[in-house]
């Protein structure tokens, strides 16, 4: 459907009656009126203008994400789930970097771990926050500031998923990001998992091992895995199958930091994805300079960052190509076109014996 009609229909959907049915009273009112003198029909009591207004403004939120997707994506090609993966492949320079990265990562042995140990990952996670102040600019727009707020994350995840994980957040650089308290996450033992927040309560679970045996090491299998259908209906913006597969790549890499063969399969799979290219001069969340293998779609940009000399995987970033595009009535400062809105930089990966123990 054309974008104008699609957005119009979405606006219409946001204005539909809650039950999509007329009030039961209306039927009686109509049929009573039909069958009797119209002047004697009962009037439905009127609600206040305030309530009406609240309904107007409250109802629009539901489709915001969908409208955004329509705005941001516009007319892309096939949408997720409607076409098989294309195999046109990444740009040649991207293929070269990905091949070198796959070669580099498999040169090192996999980290050996016992089931009772923990995978320690130290990373810088950065998220952009926008602060919309009360101040108005000279032309009447609202002034907002955007700021990347990094923090240092240290996570200890149980190798077999049956021991308690631990996550600690620490300040990073000059960031004033409020830090959450250390989070213990109960392991899944004998199919049950306790909730540290609610003593005495447990729920059914399946262990989620930090070292996963289910991720493919074969390129074709990895492609099938990255292009798998699913994750629809989550309210996330619709993207093409290629974009979705590319976005999943960094998740798989970060879930397989102890498994070089899995990572290599991801790199080789990404090399077969259309639209993947190279953006030089990238900087990761920890400030390290690198070379980025990127994919842009509509306003979205995702990138995998590699060390420009060793081709080691440094991290990922994601963002809107231009945050200020399409923002009416708000002037955002502190952000420029191409700035990422979320970033992850992997600093250290190790196997340790205890949660909370530094390598």
């Amino acid at each position, binding site marked *: 459907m054309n974008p104008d009609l699609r957005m119009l229909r979405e606006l219409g959907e946001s*204005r539909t009656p809650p039950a999509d049915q007329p009030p039961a009273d209306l039927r009686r009112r*109509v049929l009573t009126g039909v069958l009797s003198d119209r002047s004697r029909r009962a009037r439905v009591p009127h609600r206040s203008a305030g309530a009406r207004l609240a309904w107007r403004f409250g109802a629009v939120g539901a489709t915001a994400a969908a*409208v955004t997707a329509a705005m941001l994506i516009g007319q892309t090609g096939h949408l997720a789930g409607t076409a098989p993966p294309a195999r046109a492949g990444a740009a040649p320079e991207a293929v070269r970097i990905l091949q070198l990265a796959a070669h580099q990562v498999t040169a090192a042995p996999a980290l050996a771990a016992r089931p009772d140990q923990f995978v320690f990952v130290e990373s810088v996670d950065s998220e952009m926050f*926008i602060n919309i102040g009360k101040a108005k600019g000279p032309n009447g727009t609202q002034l907002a500031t955007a700021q990347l707020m990094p923090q240092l994350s240290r996570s200890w995840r149980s190798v077999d998923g049956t021991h308690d994980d631990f996550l600690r957040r620490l300040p990073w650089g000059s960031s004033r990001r409020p830090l959450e308290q250390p989070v213990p996450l109960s392991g899944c033992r004998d199919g049950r998992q306790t909730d540290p927040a609610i003593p005495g309560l447990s729920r059914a679970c399946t262990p989620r091992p930090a070292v996963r045996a289910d991720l493919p090491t074969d390129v074709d299998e990895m492609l099938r895995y990255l292009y798998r259908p699913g994750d629809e209906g989550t309210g996330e913006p619709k993207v093409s199958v290629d974009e979705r597969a590319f976005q999943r790549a960094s998740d798989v890499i970060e879930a397989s930091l102890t498994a070089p063969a899995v990572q290599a399969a991801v790199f080789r799979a990404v090399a077969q994805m259309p639209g993947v290219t190279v953006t030089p001069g990238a900087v990761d969340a920890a400030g390290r300079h690198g070379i980025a293998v990127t994919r842009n779609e509509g306003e979205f940009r995702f990138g995998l960052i590699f060390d420009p000399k060793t081709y080691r995987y440094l991290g990922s970033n994601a963002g809107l190509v231009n945050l200020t595009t399409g923002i*009416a009535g708000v002037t955002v400062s502190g952000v420029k076109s191409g700035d990422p809105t979320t970033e992850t930089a992997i600093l250290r990966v190790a196997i340790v014996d205890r949660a909370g123990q530094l390598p």
Partner: protein
Amino acid sequence: MAAVTPEADATVIRESLADPDRFAALYDRYAAQLYRYAYQRVGPQVAEDVVADTFLAAFGQRTSYDLARPDARPWLFGILTRKLARHHRRERADYRALSRSNPDAVVDGPADRVAARVTAAAARAQLAAALARLSTADRDVLLLFAWGQLSYDEIATALQIPLGTVRSRLNRARRKVREALGDVNPAGDEFADDPADDPADNMEDDR
């Protein structure tokens, strides 16, 4: 939409001439979609009134219904459209309010989500502003098509206008909507210079 069979709506209407109780079947068939459309255009309170008025008017006009037309949907939407016309000032005021309602509702948060909300709000504001600016005739055609999901033929029957007029109105309305969506107005103050755009006037009940 109810399946159109030879003895469908026209038969119900013919039978209701002798037996008014039969008219309830027409209500049960079309009340939900008429109410939904009216609700989209003028909100819950007025929607109840206009849908009730529509059926009462339809009942009164059923003697002149063209029984050669089995499907009564365009006829009912046509009556509803005329009932809605009385509320056009309120409807336009609503769209204008919607076009101005942002981005005050946007709260601080992670940038992607804020950007998404702000972008969505901006798009919605532009769309609402465009709807407010359309002529009543153009808006009727556009919204019968986009929200009422009537076909060109049904719209022509409902509004008693030639098919060519439906097409030209729809093209014009969509062009204006597209222009509004493509044209980001950073200040969002399309109505700032409109002397008729007095907030008190906007909220005035026009009945």
